[in-house]
């Protein structure tokens, strides 16, 4: 599978100016967490995390189960709010956005991929993908055309009318990736994207993410799969008990820094 220019988001020139807030620029950090803490009752899921992700970077977050990876990703996506600390994404302080503004932010800026796909069971694959564009005001026709193109490029155009329940895990994840890319997000977040897949389906998704990274997509991937991390990421962050314990930069994949 090769990603072509067709669906690759252009975080620089082609992103339209959004009416809701600051324009993202490539010379600032796309993500900036400052001393983020998150508590669920007695559990401390994140215990003071500070982290920056630059545009065009692909960052892998690793760590044992329960260390707070998903929690961190949810903070960055604006799906949840920190107990303390600030979360800035694309120059926007998410703590200052109300729920509606957060939704608009997600809709335009973020693409998300989950371990268990989280497709809408009620809609066929094509509409699952098209829905994301329709949310931003694209008419149904153009939205479906673009969704078809994306599904085609991901090699699952023939399953576009199937409902999620009848798709295999790999197919579902590819539909989820297409959906995440639909609005050309500035930031693509993936939470254990290969966690529920067999090795060959996992390979395909990894290739897909690698291609995306090489063309300049800013990526944040949560995984505990060392192979996925080393293949796709330019930097690996290790998390344990809600803290960052180690950080390393991987030389050979850092191709896209120049793309900015």
């Amino acid at each position: 599978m090769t990603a072509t220019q067709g669906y690759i988001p252009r975080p620089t020139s082609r992103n339209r100016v959004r009416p809701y807030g600051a324009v993202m620029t490539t010379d600032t950090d796309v993500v900036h967490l400052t001393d983020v803490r998150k508590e669920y009752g007695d559990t401390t899921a994140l215990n003071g995390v500070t982290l920056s992700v630059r545009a065009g970077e692909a960052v892998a977050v690793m760590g044992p189960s329960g260390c707070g990876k998903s929690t961190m990703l949810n903070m960055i996506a604006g799906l949840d709010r920190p107990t303390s600390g600030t979360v800035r994404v694309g120059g926007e302080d998410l703590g200052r956005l109300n729920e509606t503004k957060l939704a608009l932010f997600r809709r335009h800026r973020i693409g998300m991929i989950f371990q268990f796909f989280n497709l809408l069971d009620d809609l066929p694959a094509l509409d699952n993908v098209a829905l994301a564009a329709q949310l931003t005001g694209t008419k149904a026709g153009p939205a479906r055309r673009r969704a078809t193109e994306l599904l085609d490029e991901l090699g699952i155009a023939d399953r576009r009318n199937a409902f999620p329940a009848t798709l295999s895990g790999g197919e579902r994840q590819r539909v989820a990736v297409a959906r995440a890319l639909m609005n050309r997000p500035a930031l693509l977040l993936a939470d254990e994207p290969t966690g529920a897949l067999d090795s060959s389906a996992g390979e395909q998704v990894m290739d897909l993410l690698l291609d995306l990274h090489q063309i300049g997509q800013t990526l944040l991937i949560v995984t505990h799969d060392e192979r996925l991390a080393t293949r796709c990421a330019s930097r690996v962050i290790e998390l344990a008990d809600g803290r960052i314990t180690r950080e390393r930069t991987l030389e050979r994949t850092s191709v896209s820094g120049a793309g900015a």
Partner: protein
Amino acid sequence: MSAVWRASRAAVRRRRVQTFVIGLVVLMSTMTVVIGLTLLEASSAPFDRAFAQQRGPHAIAVYDASAVTGAQLAAAKTGVAASAGPFGTATLEWTAGGEPRRADGPMTIVGRADPNGPVDRLNLWRGRWASAPGEIVLASQDHSGDGFPVVDSITLSGVAYRVVGWAYSLSGTADGWVTPAQMETLRPTSVQMLYRFAGDVSTRAAVQARLDAVTAGLPANALSAAEPYLVAKEQIAADIGVFLPFLATFGVLALIVAVVIVGNVVSGAVVSGLRQIGILKSLGFTPRQVVTVYLVMVSVPAVVGAVLGTVAGSLGAQPLLEEGFEGLGLEAGIRVSLWTWGVGLLGVPALVALAAFVPAVRAHRLSAAEAISAGSAPRRGRGTRAQRWLAGLRLPRSVSLGLGVPLSRPGRTAFTVVAVLLGVTTVTFASGLADSLERIATVQEKASGQVLVIPSDGKSRIAGPRDVPPTGEPAKTTRTDAEVEQLLRGLPDAARVSAVRGTTVPAVGQTEPVRVLYFRGDFASMGYRDELTAGRWMSGPDETVVPSELMKERRLAVGDTITLELGGRRAALTIVGEVMDGPSGQPGIFADWSVFTSLEPDRVVAPHEMEYQVQLKPTGNVAAYADAVRAADPGLDALDMSERRSDFQYIVVGFSSTLSLLLAAVAALGVFNTVVLNVRERRRDLGMLKSIGMTPRQVVAMVLTSMAAVGVVGGLLGIPVGVLAHGYIMPAAADAAQVSIPQSVMDVWQAPMLLALAFAGVVIAMLGALLPARGAARLRIAEVLHNE
């Protein structure tokens, strides 16, 4: 908006079961509410409606024909919107050889050319209007039962008339009508004017003021009597008032059930859609858009259900209305009102939206991360202690697992219990009501015997409610009063006979004479004693028992003394007890026959002045006995009074069983919905249980057990509520009807009935749970595990 619409439409289309359940619940609830409201409305203002329909007169004025001319009356129109008359009016005796038969006192006969006109449009429900001399139209409600005299001719003050029609005036403007020409020959001494006034007529004083304005220009003593419409209105209100407590009870129950079930179904839809909500939010749906998706998802089936339910409810209410109000002469103009349509079409969907509001707000507030994780796994921790305790019991594993299911969703379970509870409450109340009414009917039937024998006066004859009207010349009996009684006692199967003579007697200290029923024979042992509502039965000729209606009307109490006075003779009777209502007809105080002989020692009573009530042996055949009476003496009319159930009883029982069936069905749907949701949420558990070897039968057992518990609890709580409602509503209804009811009528809660009711909850729960339980048993393991 189009993304929102797309997501909503997909949810409506793909969640067929949920859409169907919401639609059906709303449909049935709407139907119940529409029927309830229609009947409630029909009974709250039926008089006004029918009165408007008939253009009833606000005042019936009777003028002295010698004091005022027709021209003067026609000219006096101050404040009059419409008037009819002057109609010649004569007061005639129904001379059937002696005393009047049908009612006490003389009859008011009016000369009228036609039943219509600007005021008092009569309902000519049988036959035609009088058009020739010698023809008469009699006044009666459109109602052929109740031993109403079926006569084709009648003699009034010595003149025979042919009865050509029957008409009903809500305002009771006359007892009969003849042609104006015929009236001339009767030389009427008074004339009747019927007025409809412009302006305020809400009180007696207001009506009087209008009437004064009309009569101001007329000779001073021209007006001899006047009756405001409020007299008739109040009387009808008392009749209708009996229905109100029942209707209100069912109406309130229906509304609560609708709210509870719709709320539960809708919040279930939100809870089971939590993951969906999370996904929508992670995609960038705003909270408001998520709420919209949910409201649309719920509203589409709700609106369809409300429309269909309103139509079905209107159709369902119509026959009940017609049946119900025909007997009161009020059927005209009663139909499902615009207002009720409004409630069904707008109010119910609004209620659904309201019920959806709380869960929708929850969907609004929920953080996306929480929603996604809450949707994929039901919350742990809840009910686990109870689950462990259940597991420790020596129950089959599928049963103990099933019992644990309700505990993991306490809110949903509570709602389901309430739904079953209300279903059982309704069924309990309706059963108690039906039984009580049946008991009243039985007590009455027993007391007054199955056969009523009325000797003919040789002029008119009387047919029973289900009898073919007698044909041929009426024969007059040659037997004396005592001989008739002797004959009746001697015929086969007669167990008890009592003879009654009803008459009015002046009483000391009472402005109006008192109706007295002189009894002879077995009246006490026949069953009037069972009708006692207070005090004790009479034990001597100086004592009396009085029907409750009369007690209230005359403000009497047990312990009071009524002193009858006739021809200089007096009889003092002490009231020792109160009975429910005594024999049918006008209520009168009970008196021993010896009181009559002491007041009128020289009076020889003719048989046709008497009524004889016969109670047969348990094995006796009523029709055979009645035939035997007629065969033995053609001058005796024998009426089959057995199994005679009042319209009221039919209406209330019909209505309450319809509504309790509906509400029980709605409650079962509530259970159905709960089980569908539980099964959907526990698909993974079910798949796992099946993968380790649970059989489909065990799965069904597990799901049914989970709801059996709900049914038992709902049933056990619903019964006392229903019993309480019965204990409160029955006396209230009796009070509205101005009667008291004996305690025996209230004592309907015997073990067999309670046992049957205890099962009602379980039956409702099982009916609702069976289908989804079988669905759960059929779940394909591979599919479930593939999708979770």
